[in-house]
C-alpha cells in the first residue's frame, strides 16, 4: 500500500512539474499579446485622440521597462485604472461625485435588476436575438417600434435602464447638478388633463 502511495505521488509530481513547465512556457509566449491587449483596452478609455496616441506610446514603454513576464502583465492590467483616473482627471467631475454616482447606480441596479431581467426575458420571448445594444457609450434595450412592449418601454424610458450598468462601471457619471433641474422640471409638470 505504501509503495502505491509513493509511486502515485511521484507520478502526480512528475505530471504537475511537466504541466507547470508547459504552462509557464505558454504564459511567456502569450505575454506580448496579453500586455498589448491590456494596454490598448486602457488607451481606448481615454477621452481624446491626442491623449490616446501619447499614452499608448508612454504606456508601452512603461510596461516594457518592467522586469519579468508576470510583472509586465500586472502592470498592463493596472493601466485600466490609470486610464479611468486620467479620464476623470481631465473631466470636470470630482472623484467624490464619480464614486457617489457609481454607488447610486449599483444600488439602483440591485433595486431594478429584477425588472430588467423580466424585460430582457420578455424581449427574448417576443423577438429573440440580442436584447442589448449600444447607443454611443451607453447600453440600452434593443426594442422594436412595431412591438407594443417596445413602444411602452421607449415611452417610459425603461429601454434606457441598462445604462445603469455604465454608471455603475464608471464609464459615465451621474451628476446631481445636471439631474436636479430635470427632476424639478418633471415634478413641476402638470398632468395633461389638469385645468390650467
Amino acid at each position, binding site marked *: 500500500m505504501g509503495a502505491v502511495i509513493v509511486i502515485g505521488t511521484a507520478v502526480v509530481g512528475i505530471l504537475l512539474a511537466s504541466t507547470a513547465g508547459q504552462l509557464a512556457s505558454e504564459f511567456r509566449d502569450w505575454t506580448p499579446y496579453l500586455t498589448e491587449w491590456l494596454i490598448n483596452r486602457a488607451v481606448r478609455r481615454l477621452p481624446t485622440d491626442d491623449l490616446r496616441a501619447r499614452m499608448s506610446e508612454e504606456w508601452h*514603454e512603461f510596461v516594457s521597462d518592467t522586469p519579468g513576464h508576470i510583472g509586465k502583465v500586472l502592470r498592463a492590467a493596472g493601466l485600466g485604472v490609470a486610464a479611468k483616473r486620467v479620464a*476623470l482627471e481631465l473631466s470636470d467631475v470630482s472623484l467624490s461625485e464619480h464614486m457617489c454616482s457609481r454607488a447610486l447606480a449599483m444600488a439602483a441596479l440591485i433595486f431594478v435588476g429584477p425588472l430588467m431581467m423580466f424585460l430582457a426575458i420578455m424581449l427574448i420571448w417576443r423577438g429573440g436575438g440580442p436584447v442589448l445594444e449600444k447607443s454611443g457609450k451607453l447600453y440600452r434595450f434593443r426594442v422594436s417600434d412595431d412591438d407594443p412592449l417596445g413602444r411602452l418601454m421607449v415611452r417610459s424610458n425603461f429601454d434606457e435602464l441598462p445604462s445603469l450598468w455604465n454608471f455603475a462601471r464608471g464609464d459615465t457619471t451621474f451628476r446631481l447638478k445636471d439631474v436636479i433641474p430635470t427632476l424639478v422640471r418633471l415634478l413641476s409638470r402638470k398632468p395633461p388633463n389638469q385645468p390650467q
Partner: protein
Amino acid sequence: MAENIRLTHATLKVLCAIMAARGSEMSGSQVAADTGLASGSLYPILLRMERAGLLKSRWETIDPSKEGRPRRRLYKMTAAGATQTRAAMAELMPQGRASWAQ
C-alpha cells in the same frame, strides 16, 4: 503660468522624486520605481502636474527601431514646480531636513 494646486501626499512623493533628480529628466517608470506608486495613482498625478505647469515633459529623442523599445516620455520639474514643492516641503519639515529644499 503655474496654478497653485493642492498637493496630496502622493503628489508630493512624485514631485520630490523628480526634484531629487536635480534637473535630470525622469520617465514614468523611473518615477514609479522611486515612489512605489501604481500607475493608477502615478499617471493622473503626472498629467495634473503637467497641466498645472509644475512639470513639463518631452519625448526622448531616440530611434525606437534601433533601440528596440518605445520612446520614453521624460518629465522634468519647472521653476514654478520647484518653488511650490519647496514651499510644501518647508511647511512639512520646518527644520529643512531635505537638502534640496534649501
